[in-house]
């Protein structure tokens, strides 16, 4: 078991957004974390890396507790969060963005070559400022930057958000390929179908709690999942 979360609770002030979540991710898995807007998925990911310090519960990475560690330590547990939205360094070049991703990796120059081979689009734009990339390229850059730290566990928050359909396909293809690298993925998405197609298992969150879990193939045909996603935001979520 790579990641084990037990009864985790997190809050912004008095507002509890993660309410007793337990989940686990095994080595090599791609695990989806689904749910509507405001279900607490992002807050859960932020809690896992220490950006939102949990109030209660346990987080075990390789069986060791990571509770209470500052966010910049999460990478030393080989855990990297790729946050939602344009979280690249807009004023740094693409190359510099990637090198920062390898801040703690002594072989960062070697890794840079590997990542640039993987994302030829980024190699073409290596000298451009990050902020000048298109939304999809920025998402690839965020992914590449995360790989620079050679993570074992990658936490992806809505990687397809706001991307053109073709770019969504490309991003999901890249995520699927992560498996070959031996990277374990916890994937937060609103794009339910695409997520369940590449995931092994998935959890469904609602108002801060896990309401459903199971094999991806099973969930794909689960009427409960369809119900949860045919609400106001559901229609667009189904690709």
């Amino acid at each position, binding site marked *: 078991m790579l990641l084990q979360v037990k009864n985790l609770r997190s809050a912004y002030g008095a507002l509890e957004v993660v309410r007793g979540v337990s989940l686990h991710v095994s080595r090599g898995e791609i695990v989806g974390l689904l749910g509507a807007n405001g279900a607490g998925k992002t807050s859960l990911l932020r809690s896992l*890396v220490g*950006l939102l310090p949990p109030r209660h519960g346990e987080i075990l990475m390789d069986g060791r507790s990571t509770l209470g560690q*500052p*966010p*910049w*330590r*999460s*990478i*030393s547990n080989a855990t*990297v*969060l790729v*946050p939602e939205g344009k*979280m*690249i*360094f*807009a*004023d*740094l070049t693409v190359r*510099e963005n990637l*090198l*920062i*991703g390898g*801040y*703690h990796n002594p072989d960062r120059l070697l890794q840079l070559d590997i990542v640039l081979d993987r994302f030829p689009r980024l190699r073409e734009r290596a000298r451009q400022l990050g902020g000048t990339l298109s939304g999809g390229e920025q998402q690839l850059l965020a992914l590449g*930057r995360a790989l620079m*730290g050679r993570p074992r566990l990658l936490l992806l928050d809505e990687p397809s958000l706001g991307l053109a359909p073709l770019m969504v396909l490309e991003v999901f293809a890249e995520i699927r390929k992560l498996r070959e690298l031996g990277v374990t993925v916890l994937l937060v998405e609103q794009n339910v179908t695409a997520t369940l197609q590449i995931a092994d298992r998935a959890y469904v969150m609602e108002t801060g709690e896990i309401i459903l879990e199971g094999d991806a193939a099973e969930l794909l045909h689960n009427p409960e999942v369809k119900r949860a996603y045919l609400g106001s935001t559901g229609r667009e979520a189904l690709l």
Partner: protein
Amino acid sequence: MENGSMALQYLLSGITKGSIYAVVAIGFNLIYSATGVLNFAQGEFVMLGGMVAIMLAQLGLPLVVAVGAAVIVVSAVGCLLEITFFRKLRHHSILHMIIITIGLSIVIQEIALHIWDEKVRSLPYFTGNEVSSLKFFGAAISPQVLWVLGAIAVSVVLLHIFLRYTLQGRAMRACASNPEAAMLAGINIPNMRTLSFGLSAALGGLAGCVISPITMTHYEMGAPLAIKGFAAAILGGLGNPMGGVIGGLTVGILEAFAVSRLPAAFNDVAAFVVLLLVLFVRPHGLLGRPGGEAVREH
């Protein structure tokens, strides 16, 4: 021709003073972009640099050692300020932080007054003395001016190389660009913030040493430098370290020519006119981007 060499004389004097403003402005920018704090104690670093170096030189240390040690001491003071005050005072409004830095600058002045009294002091000229001068197209310049310009040019270039081409420098820019993403890459943000204070203080301390033979060192010299350095930083574009160089030189040169035309009482007018004009006309400064750093709320 006479007019021309006078103008050159003013220009040189403007560049000399302007290079000091540039250093203060760079200090403002480094700290602002890494921490969001507008540090009005920046001028005190210049004063402290001069004072510590003078004290060490009087103890009989060679000039180079005295200056080197002064830079290290002032840098340590800068780090200490960050660790003791700003690290604990995050999440306050930018205005609160400004008032805190002004308070700190007063405290530093008072401490300096107690240690070094109110006498005006100076370091000896690095080469030659107060009457030696070099001819330069009909204008006379003190060799010390070359020391000032040389020392500051070298430190600006080194800083640029640090920020552009080293991992720690890039990490510092990453913190300024997106602190949360920088943390997730494993950058220890509080340490980076301390480093930004240490670097700014070291630069200010060095400027205080090289300028001391020309402008003298006095416990009250920091506050006006902070204001002019701030004007220079705003002019160059807040948060852009190299913008501070352009801003500083501009303010210094304008000031030198203003002094030649206006009564002495209007000595500081140029800097304030620049400050107000920029704030009205182009609040993001010459090199800043509209809606970028300058209006970021912390």
